[in-house]
């Protein structure tokens, strides 16, 4: 059993990506990983906080890091935004002594201290590099042979370079898909942006980006697309109907969290993976494995 401190982030805990949290926990158990949720964590602040309140955004992350440091374990998150924001704080506290002094003072106001020792990791990194593709393949009970999957990384799991994979041509998710027996399609836009949170404030711009991704996946004849980020999943799945309305298209591409697809291959129940929460129905694609 490998132990990790787990930082679900708002979306995967109580938000729209609950199924990501459920499926992450479910496949972790199969792979003998123990994800222990960080006690009393707070929102990482994501892009909005770092965009308008710089110091406060570092303090939001620093509180989480200080709490995680007490556990002495790697801090694992399934969310690409949490991953970047927490790593960014770690990097900046090392790089800017004056910032570190300010954050230290702010943390002290809450009775906390952070020494900078926490390693922040994305769940994909842990699965690919700690567990490994061979161990994942060993747990497959329903080989996904014949299934064409578009492995979508999005931006922040690979950029900027906190990472474990190439910032523009990543491979880890492709290999993970292959270890389940499925076929990762060549997906040229796999590390391009889904529009992020601008889908809320500048919807038209973001829908254009989502359409590009759906179009690329369709050209490669993908039967489904998998994501490693709650916001990417939301933009591609929840907003797919709005893309169709806006551009007169007829996309009907199931969008799964990568842990949901792993769970299907591991023979886990539809309920435990939250497959009913996906807006574009996934049933047709996964039915033959049940």
């Amino acid at each position, binding site marked *: 059993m490998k132990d990790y401190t787990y930082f679900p982030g708002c979306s995967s805990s109580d938000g729209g990506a609950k199924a990501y949290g459920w499926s992450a926990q479910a496949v972790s158990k199969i792979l003998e990983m123990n994800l222990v949720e960080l006690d009393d964590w707070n929102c990482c602040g994501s892009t909005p906080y770092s965009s308008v309140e710089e110091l406060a955004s570092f303090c939001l992350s620093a509180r989480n890091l200080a709490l995680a440091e007490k556990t002495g374990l790697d801090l694992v998150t399934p969310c690409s935004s949490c991953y970047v924001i927490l790593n960014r704080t770690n990097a900046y506290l090392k790089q800017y002594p004056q910032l570190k002094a300010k954050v230290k003072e702010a943390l002290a106001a809450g009775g906390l201290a952070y020494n900078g020792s926490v390693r922040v990791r994305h769940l994909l990194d842990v699965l690919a590099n700690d567990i490994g593709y061979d161990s994942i393949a060993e747990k497959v009970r329903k080989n996904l042979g014949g299934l064409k999957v578009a492995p979508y990384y999005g931006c922040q799991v690979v950029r900027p370079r906190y990472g474990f994979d190439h910032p523009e041509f990543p491979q880890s998710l492709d290999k993970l898909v292959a270890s389940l027996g499925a076929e990762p399609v060549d997906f040229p836009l796999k590390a391009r*942006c889904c529009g992020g949170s601008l889908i809320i404030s500048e919807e038209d711009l973001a829908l254009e980006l989502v359409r590009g991704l759906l179009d690329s996946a369709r050209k490669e004849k993908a039967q489904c697309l998998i994501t490693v980020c709650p916001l990417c999943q939301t933009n591609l799945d929840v907003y797919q109907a709005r893309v169709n309305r806006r551009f007169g298209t007829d996309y009907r591409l199931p969008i799964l969290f990568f842990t949901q697809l792993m769970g299907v291959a591991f023979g886990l129940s539809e309920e435990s993976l939250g497959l009913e*929460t996906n807006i574009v129905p996934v049933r047709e694609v996964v039915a033959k494995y049940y």
Partner: protein
Amino acid sequence: MEIKKQNDTFMDEIRAMPGGENINLCIQCGTCTASCPNAGVMDHTPSQLIAMARAGMKNEVLSSNAMWHCLSCYLCTVRCPRGIKQTELMHALECLAVRNGLSHGRTLTPAMYRSFNDFVYSLGSLPEFGFMTWFHLLTNPLRALKMIPMALSLLKHKRLSIRARRLTPDGTNQLRAILDKAEAMGDGL
């Protein structure tokens, strides 16, 4: 001389923000602009914005819509041959625009960010439904109506939580104390 002085002050302000310190290294190659998914809708492209900042055009830079269209996709950052972190620079400019009261109304992104932050500050977590409803009501109640079908679909698929996740009372107080202290100290290095 007056212009030179003003220019230095603005550049100092930018360089004092984490991520802003390398702005002098730009060679105007345009790689960031060519990489940016949203460059086409920005008043000024990322490389133009850097050139303008260096020319001391503080008001023009800070009232541009450019940084508010940054998606934080970091493509520019990993491609810049001079190691400038443009994404962080964009965030620094957003912070400066807010500080100078220049974030304008032509894009709803500043209002969206503020709604987000208000929730995070008061709850310590982000209730997506509350945040989006609040943002739409603040900016365009009509669009809030248009979002109803999507909200219903999310509800049907068990993806909508009305209730927000709360920290423990101790955790809430601790976070508040930390953020209040941060606010009292102010941004910048």
